[in-house]
Structures are given as C-alpha cells and as structure tokens.
C-alpha cells in the first residue's frame, strides 16, 4: 500500500487513474480505516485529499454553500450559516458516529462510502444538493441523489472523486429535518431514516416538498408519492397518514442483524411523519 | 451419624433418598463415606462438590468439622465471575 498526499485535485485524480490496483480516498477515514482493519479491502494506493486547497473550506455561493469534501462533521456543525439554511442536512451529518468520529468524518465520505444507511445522504437528497466531481477528464457536477449505486457502490468512474458538495439557496419559509432510528441513543448505524424538506406559502400550506428514506432499500430512496401527499396541505392528519403510507409502501428493506423488514417498513413511516412535522415548524408553519 | 441432604438429580444413586446418613466428623470423612456407601455418587464427588454446613458454603476444606446436629447439604462445586 502506498500513501499519497497530493497538492491538487487534478494530481489526485491523475494518480488514482494511473494506479492499476484498488485506490481509496482518505478524507475523514472513518470508513476506510475500518475497512482496512477488517482486511476486506486491500488498496494499493491511499490518497489523502485534506491538503488540497479549498477542500476544507465552507464557502457561501449563490445564496447557498459549497462544502469542501474534507470538511469534518464537527467543522460543519460549527458553521452557523449552513445550519440556519439547511438544519436537516447538518443534523444528519452530526449523527454520524461519536464525537470522535465527528472530528474526522465528512459529508462527502459518508456519501461515497455508498451505505444505504448513510446519515448525511437523505438530507442531501431532499436538498437537491450537487456534488462537484474531479476526475482524470476534468470537473463535472452531479446530483447527490445520482451518486449511490447500491451498498458500497457509487456511480463515480475510476479516478473520480468528490471535491465539494453544493447546498443550494432555498426560498423563504423553507425547512428540513432528518431523523433516524437506532436501538441506542448513539453509536449505531441507522435501522431506518427519513429526511423531509419543504417550503410553505404565507398561509402555511406546503407548496413544495421532498421526502427521502434511508436504510430501507439498496440506496437512499426519494419518495415522490410521500411528497405529493403533503403538498397542498398544512400537514393535517389525513395528509400525514397518506405520507406515512406512501413511505411504508416505498420501502423494500432486508432482514438483518439490525432490523426486520416489518420493523423498518413501519418505522420509516413514523420517522418521515416526525421529520415532516419538525421541518414544517422550522419553515415557520403552525398547525 | 450426619444427615446429608443431596440434590435431586443425585437421588438415583442413593436409592431415591433425598437425605442419607453417614458416619463422619469432617468434610473429608463425609465425602469418603458417601463414595463408599453410594458408589454412584463417586463421579460427581470427583468432579467436585461444595458443602453447606449450617448454611455456610465451603468449597473444599476437608477438615471442616461437622457436628452431629449440623445441617449438611451437598451442592455442586461452584465457580463464579
């Protein structure tokens, strides 16, 4: 195994493209190091991207924020601006691991690890966040929702890696929230999770919504039917029931050591309901 | 004579009796006599037994004295955490 600390993104992409063996990006390292320890990956090259200029920066851009791929959860949590604009995204990132893991783990790493239970991803998906990707053939932008391809898999090509994630501006009276279920209060992987982002009109009626579920399908799942169920409502009981049902219907989870199909299906709906109510209140709505 | 209470699953080796009487003045004599009088108990005694004497549990202690009025209960050898 070789360890490299390139000075630029293009240099990093180049060395990964040229390496015939397995390569791994090291940003926070909280997933890669565990995989190395378990011996289930044996990369030929580890590329530390933390020293590439800009990758540890949070930069205001077009009313939103560009978040460098090496920004840790703890650093993101300290950014009052991002939290004010996208509180649900920040709370998702903050739920990744312990305080110690927060000191290292990154939003981009959480995305590129490809876990269907990744805490950062449902919020990013409902935010319509865009990842900037650098590869041997240059730079491209891609919706975060289009990056996960299945457990442990992404749509990134050989040599490509995420350099930043852009959280867009959003209209007034918008709010988002993320909730997950874990057996303990901390330190677990989500058994099911839900993110809801919505925008209200002046009367408190939902005019735009997005609902995404985690850990209930091979990738984080956007549930348009759940969003439709609440658009045009003030989250009355009937709307909530319809949204919950749409969420449960969208689930195709597995039975494993962390939870059953039945449990995940039911709890995903419960979490979506609770997240929607929080997002609604963050958007300034009163029911 | 000392009356020794044995535990239920050993009764098949004592002709069904839950309590047997043996001549003994200490733990060692008691175990020897039990093995002699009830050979079926021998494997268990060799694996190890504890002895409750008037409510106190002894794990080995051969020379622990047993009075004629003592309450003597045989128990499996115990190990803990």
């Amino acid at each position: 195994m070789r360890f490299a600390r390139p000075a630029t993104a293009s240099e990093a992409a180049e060395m990964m493209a040229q390496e015939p063996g397995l390569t791994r990006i090291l940003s926070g390292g909280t997933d890669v190091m565990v995989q190395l320890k378990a011996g289930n990956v044996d990369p030929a090259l580890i590329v530390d991207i933390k020293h590439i200029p800009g990758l540890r920066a949070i930069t205001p851009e077009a009313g939103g924020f560009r978040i460098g791929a090496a920004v840790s959860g703890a650093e993101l949590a300290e950014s009052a601006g991002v939290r004010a604009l996208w509180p649900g995204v920040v709370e998702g990132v903050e739920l990744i691991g312990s305080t110690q893991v927060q000191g290292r783990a990154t939003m981009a790493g959480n995305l590129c690890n490809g876990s269907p239970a990744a805490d950062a991803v449902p919020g990013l998906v409902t935010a319509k966040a865009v990842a900037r990707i650098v590869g041997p053939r240059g730079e491209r932008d891609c919706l975060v929702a289009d990056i996960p391809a299945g457990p442990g898999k992404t749509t990134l090509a050989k040599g490509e890696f995420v350099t930043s994630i852009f959280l867009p501006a959003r209209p007034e009276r918008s709010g988002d929230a993320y909730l997950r279920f874990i057996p303990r209060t901390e330190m677990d992987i989500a058994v099911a999770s839900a993110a809801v982002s919505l925008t209200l009109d002046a009367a408190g009626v939902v005019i735009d919504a997005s609902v995404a579920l985690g850990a209930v399908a091979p990738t984080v799942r956007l549930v348009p039917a759940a969003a439709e169920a609440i658009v045009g409502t003030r989250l009355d009981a009937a709307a909530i029931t319809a949204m919950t049902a749409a969420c449960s219907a969208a689930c195709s989870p597995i039975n494993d050591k962390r939870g059953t199909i039945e449990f995940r299906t039911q709890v995903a709906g419960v979490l979506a309901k609770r997240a929607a109510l929080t997002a609604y209140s963050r958007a300034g709505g009163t029911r | 004579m000392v009356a020794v209470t044995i535990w239920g699953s050993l009764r098949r080796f004592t002709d069904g009796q839950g309590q047997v009487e043996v001549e003994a003045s200490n733990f060692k004599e008691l175990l020897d006599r039990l093995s002699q009088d009830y050979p079926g108990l021998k494997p268990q005694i060799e694996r190890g037994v504890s002895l409750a004497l008037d409510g106190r549990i002894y794990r080995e202690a051969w020379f622990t004295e047993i009075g004629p009025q003592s309450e003597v209960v045989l128990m499996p050898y115990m190990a803990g955490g």
Partner: protein
Amino acid sequence: MKSIHVSTTVNGDAIEFICAPEDSLLDVLRNRMGLTGAKEGCGTGDCGACSVTLNGRLVCACLVLGAEAEGAAIGTIEGLADGDTLHPLQQSFIDHAALQCGICTPGILVAAKALLDRNPDPTDTEVRYWLAGNLCRCTGYDKIIHAVQDAAHKMRSA
C-alpha cells in the same frame, strides 16, 4: 511497502518517526513512541479508548493513519497533567472513584477535556452525549458524569 518518514508534534514535543503506510496513529503512538496511554479496545472507532486530539479535534487514533500526523499537533493522555500536577479532571476522577478497571479512563479524560475546552458548563445530558463514543463497562457512567461535572465546576471557579 515503503516506510514513511513523519515529523509531528506530540504533547508539544517535536517527534519524528518512521511508519508503514497502513499503520494507524494508534499503532505509531503505542508501538513506535511507547505512548501506551491510548488503548486499543476495538480498532474500529466504536469504543473511544484511543481518544486523542489531532490539531485540537477529538479523534480516535485508530481511525487516523500514522502518515497523517505529518505537520500535525497531537495531544494524548500523557500530556494532560502539567508536570507533577494532575489536571483537575484527573484529580476529579480519582476523588469520585470514576474508574474501576481504568482501561477506558485515558480516552474518557482526553474526551472530557475536549468537551470542557469548548463548553465549560455543560449539562449532564451534554456530557453524556459527548462521551457516548467512550465505552465504559465497569462504572455504568454515573460516577464519570459526576467527576466531569465536578471538575468543570472547579475549573470555572478557579
């Protein structure tokens, strides 16, 4: 496998070491520097026994590569006391019997100091959530929370 030469700072001392690319910072601290205060309880970031600070951030040393220490400032339990004067947290853990076997104690102290550096007056709930990544199997955490709070109180009134 090519060894890497690393220059770093540990508890304020400039240190150089050679490590393999796959060595974790924990491996380096324990096996190359003889700093065995950070413990390996899991090697996967789930127990917190190897907590150290890396450029002021609380991290699990088992989830950091040794090579990443280049140019960084690392803080370990061995640097918590000021010479022969214990840090108030250390004294408080002894006074409140906040340790039994003590294997988790170095990690918890490093983590608790990182908390009090940021938040000198945390609530019990804040202490509990901050320390959720530090497993302790002996104490049930109760005396740990008391010890942290008492140290915080003493540090605030100092």
